[in-house]
């Protein structure tokens, strides 16, 4: 048996390669689709080809008679399954009843109508084509502004105005600010619908053990415990009779921070047929029926003084919700409101949201969730203001930043920014990129008729989501640490990493606290039968909240280890470090391994101390954390083709202390790629009838290796006072910081033509037209 190494080497802050990788690089990891069970059945879902229609009839006879088919279920069969839940609540929110299978109407293309179950996946697919649905097609509306117009088709007949909610928030004295302003800049801008596109589509395996009344649900999710609570409710099953296992998850980006119809539906099917059943979403279904992100139309007004001081901000958001609410759909734009002042000092803000139903897939949390939209908005507006005032975009930002001695800083939207030095990353980024020189070069380039632009974005974000009062399901996170009798350490986290690498970073934290080696620590996640209740991984929360829960559990254990050590050494005066309890008088010591063994053998116990070494903590954070940073983009545009070439991409992020800078860099790169995707290429297009035009990877352009610029990334470090690790979170930073830097850069390049704003994505066609039209 390998012994637990006691050691003085520390791991936090180092670029440690990941402990989860061996199984992933050898092809031996288990994703949902890899699960095989004896007697496995396969489900294929029949979906609506229409965006709005009444269902006249569904004929399933032929499908039922097809080879291999064991059952076909429709909305009639699943009427007793509870609705797909919406966890968000807003005053006056209209919540349509969201059945797992359509009953009498369908509301978007892809709406599930029936499920075919067969002994073989090919046979199930064949039979799905034999289900005959007779539709009475109705007019549809796919554009949120059109949906608000008089006479628009009603998505839900009971609410002819297509308005799910309105929301108003105000801080300071906006009218006064605008009355006193020297100038007001206004702009309409959109943050288009996007497809999260985790490379692994969704998938579910459900297994019903009737004799035990036990439902095992394997699902690709970011929130296994919440899925258990909510799906058990939908199926009227006792929560403790359901086990949710999240095996390897192939990316989420918010799209798996949800509870989907198919999760309950597969539970329903398994309970009916008494056999395990597997459903794997096709990529086309993934585009149609997994949540989309963004979908904003924003109307901004910013009031300012002639010296560049921002006095106030007005914002109207038209949020395209889609046909239903998924778990957090209506809450997402409220995050945009919270973030609307960005890093700037203004205390006067007014925001209004209209949440609009459309005959489209619901929108919900996609990487950044409301914060990229807000950051894009304010960062574009600041540039417009600078342009109007002929100020340098860096200078106007430096002028309006919350000062580094003003923290904690209460914002106009009710947040308390924890810590920051907003000028630091901007100054660093300006230096890295060589800003002054580039501006000189730009003057020359313009003389030669070249289109060169420099764009800045300075972003802030709300991370470590979040204190419980700010979240629909509890904003804490949990951790259990067990030191086994051999001294090996097992960590169980309530977070649910799916690429972020907490099997490594949590081992780093644990190894340092206990003075053991990384190999002595095992991190377990994603199984409700093993791990104590947890909230999950989203909103850049796992390390800041889950890591802190772990930290406190480790402190509890350290205290207990010391007690056992003191007992064994027969001394009161001991210290615990480097995996040893040492008597300060004699210098004698006991290893963690010896102490762990003694704690379980329990021949003797310290006073008022139980045997064993186990601690569980549920940590409730007192506040969010607020990371920030600056991204600068230098672009060159080909006037002939409208192609944008990103010459330089500099990202300086401040996410507080870093547990593993290698993984932080990876998060920034991936985040930037998704931000660039939005800025330059990606966009969901529904036609007027609600047909998804961008229904395949062929029509929806995600970034590929040759499309990405080299990202020069660096950091400043401002620890968060919110948690003892001083970490803030970094999962969404790249995405949030990116898109305004890109658009600001391109608008800057084209500003000699009088271009003030361009909506994303910045396709060559759009750019070419601007240049051709302007010349």
């Amino acid at each position, binding site marked *: 048996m390998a012994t637990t190494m006691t050691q003085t080497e520390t791991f936090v802050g180092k670029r440690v390669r990941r402990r989860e990788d061996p199984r*992933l690089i*050898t092809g031996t990891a288990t994703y949902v689709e890899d699960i095989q069970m004896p007697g496995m059945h396969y489900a294929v879902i029949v979906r609506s080809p229409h965006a709005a229609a009444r269902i006249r009839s569904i004929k399933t006879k032929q499908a039922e008679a097809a080879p291999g088919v064991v059952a076909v279920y429709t909305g009639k069969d699943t009427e007793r399954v509870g609705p797909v839940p919406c966890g968000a609540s807003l005053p006056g929110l209209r919540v349509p009843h969201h059945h797992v299978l359509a009953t009498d109407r369908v509301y978007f293309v892809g709406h599930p109508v029936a499920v075919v179950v067969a002994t073989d996946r*090919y046979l199930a697919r064949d039979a799905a084509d034999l289900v005959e649905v007779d539709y009475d097609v109705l007019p549809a509306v796919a554009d949120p502004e059109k949906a608000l117009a008089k006479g628009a088709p009603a998505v839900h007949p009971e609410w002819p105005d297509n308005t799910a909610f309105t929301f108003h928030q105000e801080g300071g004295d906006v009218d006064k600010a605008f009355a006193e302003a020297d100038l007001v800049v206004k702009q309409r801008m959109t943050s288009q619908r996007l497809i999260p596109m985790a490379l692994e589509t969704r998938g579910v395996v459900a297994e019903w053990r009737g004799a035990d009344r036990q439902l095992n649900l394997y699902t690709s999710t970011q929130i296994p415990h919440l899925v258990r609570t909510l799906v058990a409710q939908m199926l009227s099953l006792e929560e403790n009779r359901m086990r949710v296992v999240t095996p390897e*998850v192939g990316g989420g980006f918010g799209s798996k921070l949800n509870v989907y119809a198919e999760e309950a539906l597969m539970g329903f099917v398994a309970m009916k047929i008494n056999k395990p059943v597997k459903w794997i979403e096709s990529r086309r279904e993934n585009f149609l029926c997994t949540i989309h992100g963004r979908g904003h139309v924003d109307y901004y007004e910013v009031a300012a003084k002639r010296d560049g001081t921002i006095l106030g901000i007005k914002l109207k958001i038209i949020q395209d919700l889609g046909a239903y609410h998924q778990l957090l759909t209506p809450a997402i734009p409220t995050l945009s409101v919270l973030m609307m002042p960005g890093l700037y000092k203004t205390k006067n803000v007014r925001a209004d949201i209209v949440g609009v139903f459309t005959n489209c897939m619901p929108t919900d949390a996609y990487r950044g969730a409301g914060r990229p939209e807000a950051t894009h908005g304010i960062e574009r507006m600041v540039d417009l203001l600078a342009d109007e005032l002929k100020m340098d975009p860096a200078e106007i930002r430096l002028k309006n930043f919350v000062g580094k001695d003003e923290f904690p800083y209460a914002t106009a939207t009710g947040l308390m920014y924890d810590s920051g030095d907003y000028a630091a990353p901007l100054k660093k980024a300006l230096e890295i990129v060589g800003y002054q020189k580039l501006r000189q070069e730009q003057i020359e380039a313009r003389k030669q008729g070249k289109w060169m632009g420099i764009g800045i974005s300075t972003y802030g974000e709300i991370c470590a989501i979040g204190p419980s009062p700010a979240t629909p399901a509890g904003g804490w996170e949990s951790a259990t640490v067990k030191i086994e009798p051999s001294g090996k350490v097992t960590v169980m986290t309530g977070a649910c990493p799916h690429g972020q690498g907490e099997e490594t970073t949590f081992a780093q934290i644990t190894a340092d606290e206990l003075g053991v080696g990384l190999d002595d620590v095992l991190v377990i996640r994603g199984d409700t039968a093993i791990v104590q209740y947890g909230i999950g991984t989203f909103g850049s929360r796992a390390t800041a909240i889950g890591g802190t829960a772990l930290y406190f559990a480790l402190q509890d254990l350290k205290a207990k280890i010391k007690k056992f050590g003191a007992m064994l050494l027969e001394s009161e005066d001991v210290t615990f470090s480097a995996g040893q309890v040492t008597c300060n008088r004699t210098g004698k010591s006991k290893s963690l391994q010896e102490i762990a063994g003694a704690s379980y053998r329990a021949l003797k116990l310290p006073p008022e101390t139980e045997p064993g070494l186990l601690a569980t903590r549920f940590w409730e954070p007192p506040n969010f954390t607020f990371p920030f940073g600056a991204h600068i983009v230098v672009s060159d545009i080909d006037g002939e083709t409208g192609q944008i070439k990103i010459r330089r991409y500099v990202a300086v992020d401040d996410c507080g202390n870093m547990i593993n800078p290698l993984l932080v860099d990876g998060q920034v790169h991936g985040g930037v790629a998704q931000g660039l995707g939005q800025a330059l290429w990606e966009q969901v297009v529904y036609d007027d009838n609600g047909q998804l035009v961008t229904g*395949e*990877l062929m029509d929806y352009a995600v970034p590929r290796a040759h499309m*990405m610029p080299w990202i020069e990334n660096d950091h400043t470090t401002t620890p968060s006072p919110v948690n003892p690790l001083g970490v803030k979170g970094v999962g969404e930073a790249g995405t949030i910081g990116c898109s305004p830097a890109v658009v600001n850069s391109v608008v800057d390049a084209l500003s000699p033509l009088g271009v003030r704003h361009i909506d994303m994505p910045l396709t060559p066609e759009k750019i070419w037209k601007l240049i051709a039209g302007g010349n």
Partner: protein
Amino acid sequence: MKIRVTINGKSYSHDVEPRLLLIHYLREVVGLTGSHVGCETSLCGACTVELNGKAVKSCTMFAVQADGASVVTVEGLATDGKLHPVQEAFWNEHGLQCGFCTPGMIMASKQILDRTPKPTEEEIRHGLEGNVCRCTGYQHIVNAVKAAAAGAGK
């Protein structure tokens, strides 16, 4: 139809339906689940395997088309418990996050290096065009391929 295929050096023979895709054959009949399905339309590269020394997308081939061929999947790269240099480089350079694209990426990267032992960054990026990664932004993957190339030269 009866087919004989050599996979990772082992020979298999199976009776398969003519319409069975190679990726499903590998994953479900042979039980090698390392290669993944990300799109089924030859656009993502998650299913990339080597067929007679050439990287192919196994979602766009039928199993019967592999009759008589020699296939290498990600599971066949490590020898005697020793990782292939490309696998090792992906690990060292943090060339993966969720890992779903990784088997395909590793096979595509191996192909790049088989053809161009000392690729430029542009050649690497170009060689990876057919493979989508939604997590990493590709930079650490590019680093991994560079590192594998440098390591192989030592």
